[in-house]
């Protein structure tokens, strides 16, 4: 089982320091991704998902960013301790990233062929002819028509969906073991979103790679994820297999998120929304970060930081209150 682990993030803390305040964007996040597994990191905007993803690749700007603690082990190797050169040989080669905004994430002054073959040539020592063939193959794999001609196109000549496919092709260029997809469908319209999701599933199956998929959209999660981590205010609130999260959510935040999903049974009714908003990472509430918005909050939530409660079979939730209510203590097991 241990050998199957691809990446494990342990108690990662990323702070952004300015003169007056420290924004604790990521405040002790722990999660794992196994080989050939698709893991979703879910949460509202501003909960620290993207910062978590960027710190895996060492792309958090320092300063103002500061990796305040924790470890990131990729195949047993500590990524946070690597120097620039070694980190560069990991980026794009072993871990690749697909970003949220395909419109601005491609360099406007280079052709897409240049940009993809660049990703290959940094890590692989192959001649330009082979690079070109590989680019064409990659573009074909991600479903771009007439790839030979598209190679010489500039990003502005492609549609949003095509650009995201190009980004994915670029990420696949060196056959990475892990692809981090940071809200890759958020900027696209719904029909294209669906195509890109299918593409990710297809890639994951055919290339046997792992995907860390970051999203705020629970609808996406059901389609793609094997396991889910729900993130709230810089910490993991709940984790488990997709069915556990969707059918037996144990954290009030996850329940709130699920309740706010539109569905057929709720047709005609007003959609539920969690009251309040994500706390400012510079001024987090004491105790449980979710307590100001929580319907189950009891006085101890205001002062005590909640621990992870184990429901067994990989299902954990950071809410002792609901854990007590289900009358399953760790001692009982």
């Amino acid at each position, binding site marked *: 089982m241990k050998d199957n682990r691809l990446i494990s993030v342990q108690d990662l803390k990323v702070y952004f320091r300015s003169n007056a305040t420290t924004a604790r964007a990521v405040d002790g996040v722990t999660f794992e991704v196994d080989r050939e597994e698709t893991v979703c990191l879910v949460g509202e905007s501003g909960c620290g998902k993207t910062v978590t993803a960027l710190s895996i*690749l060492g792309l958090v700007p320092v300063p103002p960013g500061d990796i305040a603690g924790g470890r990131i082990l990729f195949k047993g190797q500590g990524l946070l301790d690597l120097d*620039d050169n070694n980190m*560069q040989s990991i*980026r794009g080669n072993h871990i690749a990233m697909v970003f949220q905004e395909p419109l601005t994430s491609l360099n*406007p*002054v280079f052709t897409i062929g240049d940009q993809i073959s660049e990703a290959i040539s940094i890590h692989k020592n192959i001649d330009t002819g082979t690079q070109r063939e590989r680019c064409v193959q990659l573009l074909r794999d991600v479903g771009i028509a007439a790839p030979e001609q598209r190679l010489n196109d500039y990003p502005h000549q492609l549609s949003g969906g095509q650009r995201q496919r190009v980004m994915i092709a670029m990420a696949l260029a060196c056959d990475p073991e892990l692809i981090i997809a940071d809200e890759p469908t958020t900027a696209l319209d719904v029909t294209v979103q669906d195509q890109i999701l299918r593409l990710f599933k297809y890639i994951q199956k055919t290339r046997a790679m792992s995907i860390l998929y970051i999203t705020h959209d629970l609808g996406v999660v059901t389609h793609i994820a094997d396991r889910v981590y729900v993130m709230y205010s810089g910490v993991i609130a709940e984790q488990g297999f997709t069915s556990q999260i969707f059918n037996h959510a144990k954290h009030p935040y996850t329940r709130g998120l699920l309740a706010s999903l539109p569905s057929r049974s709720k047709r005609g009714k007003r959609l539920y929304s969690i009251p309040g908003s994500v706390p400012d990472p510079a001024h987090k509430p004491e105790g449980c970060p979710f307590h100001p918005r929580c319907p189950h909050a009891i006085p101890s939530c205001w002062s005590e930081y909640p621990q992870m409660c184990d429901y067994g079979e990989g299902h954990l939730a950071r809410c002792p209150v609901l854990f007590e209510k289900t009358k399953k203590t760790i001692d009982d097991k």
Partner: protein
Amino acid sequence: MLSFIGRSVVQKIITLFFVSVVSFLIIHIAPGEPSQVDPMNPKFTPEVVERFREEFHLDKPLHVQYIYFYQNLFTGKTVSWKDNQSVLQKIWERFLNSLPLFIVGTVLTWTLSFPVGIRSAIYRGRLYDRSATFLSYLLISIPGFFFAYVLIIFVVTHFHVPVIGMETFGTGNTSTVFVVMDRTWHLLLPSVLGATGGIAVLSRYVRSQMLEVGGQDYIRTARAKGLPQEQVHYKHALRNALLPFITMFGLILPGLIGGSVIIESIFSWPGMGRMAYEAILARDYPVILTVNFVSAVLVLAGTFISDILYIIADPRIRL
């Protein structure tokens, strides 16, 4: 592409026509006639003034004068009212004098600003950036004429070389090496001085442009690919950061004329800027208007060149 060039040339000719009309009107409507430059001079009797006005068509209506002037300009017959020399000949001579100053100054400015600005952006907030910032604001704040005198005093007292004018008077019979060295010394100070202000300003622009581009998503993508820092900066960032400078690059050309009036005056450099300045004082209309026309042509040529460069450099611009 060809149709763009054709269209652009036609547009620029129309602009040039309006420029010629407006500049002609401004010069002629402005108070003070050439005949009144020196009213106390006993040689300027009313009869002489009258003859002068007649000879240069100053008694004719403005539109006739306009036609006379531009007819002469395009047939190359325009002469200066001051010394009766051909204006084009005069401008050409002065242009050749200004050219070395302009070339050395421009090359210095553009070759030094970019490394300084780029390094400042990369080492933002560090010692290098702070000292470069301090130095550029110092150079921007110090008036050019004051700085020029400080430099002249320094160079003359420490190196014992003359720096005023284009060459030391009476070096005609000395060896070639000496003449070349003498010319170089004379050229060095005014062009370095002209460049310092330019470097100070341009390197600031380069820095802010690099910082702006450095925050773009595609720079993050380039880093996420595993590109080394140098390639991220010098390939992905620089290529985009350069685009706005194409406009500025096109506008170097008109600097040939107006860019160096002060420096040419301080160093007694017989260049274009000084000639234009002296012509204005003497109300030598043909020289003023010709210089004006030539600089208008240079501005339009500069914008034309930058338009073409944009098409080459930025794939998003298509015709």
